[in-house]
């Protein structure tokens, strides 16, 4: 019996999608490595400066690299959330449909 995989998308499109994927992951790890930058500037200035207690410490990313890293991370996070919610909605639709047709009731594998 001949079985032909029905392709919804062409090979080219699939390849592009996987490339995008990999690109995102690389971007992610690249920006994550920027996170560590803030430790070094803080250290060197610590050497000979006298200890003065500031009135109020307002936190913020210490350099542009860290700030960019954080913003890219937030973008990745929201993108992931959107994608995961999309998948979850698909799963919910399916599992609801199965429940309604009684797939889970007596038939147990």
């Amino acid at each position, binding site marked *: 019996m001949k079985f032909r995989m029905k392709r919804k998308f062409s090979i080219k499109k699939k390849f592009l999608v996987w490339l995008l994927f990999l690109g995102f992951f690389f971007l992610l790890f690249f920006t994550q490595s920027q996170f560590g930058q*803030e*430790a070094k500037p803080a250290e060197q200035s610590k050497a000979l400066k006298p200890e003065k207690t500031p*009135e109020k*410490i307002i*936190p913020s990313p210490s350099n542009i690299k860290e700030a960019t890293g*954080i913003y890219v991370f937030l973008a990745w*996070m929201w993108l992931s959330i959107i994608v995961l919610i999309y998948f*979850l*909605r698909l799963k919910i639709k399916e599992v609801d449909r199965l429940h309604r047709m009684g797939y889970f009731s007596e038939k147990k594998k």
Partner: protein
Amino acid sequence: MRMGIQSWFDERFGISAIMEFLRKKTVPQHKHTIWYYTGSSILFFFVVQVITGFMLAFYYKPTLEEANKSVARIMTEVPLGWIIRSVHFWSASFMIALVFIHLIGIWLVKSYRKPRELTWMSGVFLLIVTLLFGFTGYLLPWDDLSLSATKVGTDIPRSIPVIGAWVTQFLRGGEDVTGDTLSRFFSFHICILPIFVLLIIAIHIYLIQKQGMSLPLAAEIKEEKVREIPFWPNFVYREMIVWLILGGVLFSLAVFFPPSLDKQADLMAPAPQGIKPEWYFLFLFQTLKIFPAKILFVSGVSVAALLIALAGILFFFLPFIDNRPSGKKGKILTLFAYTLIAYAVAMTAWSLWR
């Protein structure tokens, strides 16, 4: 191979029995279903608090001299410390807000009626413990604002007759707020309260599983057949969506609106301008403020504290007071719930306005 590992553990733990139960457990679907999501959302934020709390405790030093400095160090030197602290701060507010929302939901659909009285009462304990978490955690940075807030907060129980002075001394570790108070509060925050909260959560969740999800009063009266979906995986998938959104909002807020740190508290300095407790205590704070200094021959604070304590006790025993929720009594109590909500919101708004 995955199935092999799963069945290996299942032979020993018997987890499949739990999974079977979760598959059989159903969640009713009706117009009040949205309230069902509040419980697990609270758990989500609690887990976030535990994880970020573990991390903060790695660097925090709970002594009078070092507390503020260690928090400053977390915010400036430790890599991304300010984000972790910010997440902890925001997640606390989210969790407390959700606890209030959860409470209101339960009250409005009257889920506390028989046989769920104990669930309600354990829930009230959880509310108190959660508020105590917030109260004890607020002192830990040991800056001017938190010191003053703690001084006021621990002074209020003093006006309860008979036991008041002891309660204040217990909370403060003495007559005044000192380094001992800080140690005590730290111990409460990371050790005593977590153990209690885990125990009570276990009781609360066990009761819910044993008794099943409650139906809103209206549905029960009409005895209509409500559509139900299985808890696992249908409802859990829906809960995951809620968690994802809440987590995303939490993290975004934490990054863009991190809390600041004031300078170290001075025990001898006068109270700074504009001290106020965290938002979840504002309505109580305002209630205390509107009482006059003296009523007859008792101090205003005493009367206020007593009234609030009385309200708390009635609140705790609500399932027994509202033993006929479908009757007129029940309707009055529903109205009362709305009044309380309006009161709390109005008081909070008023105290923010000043």
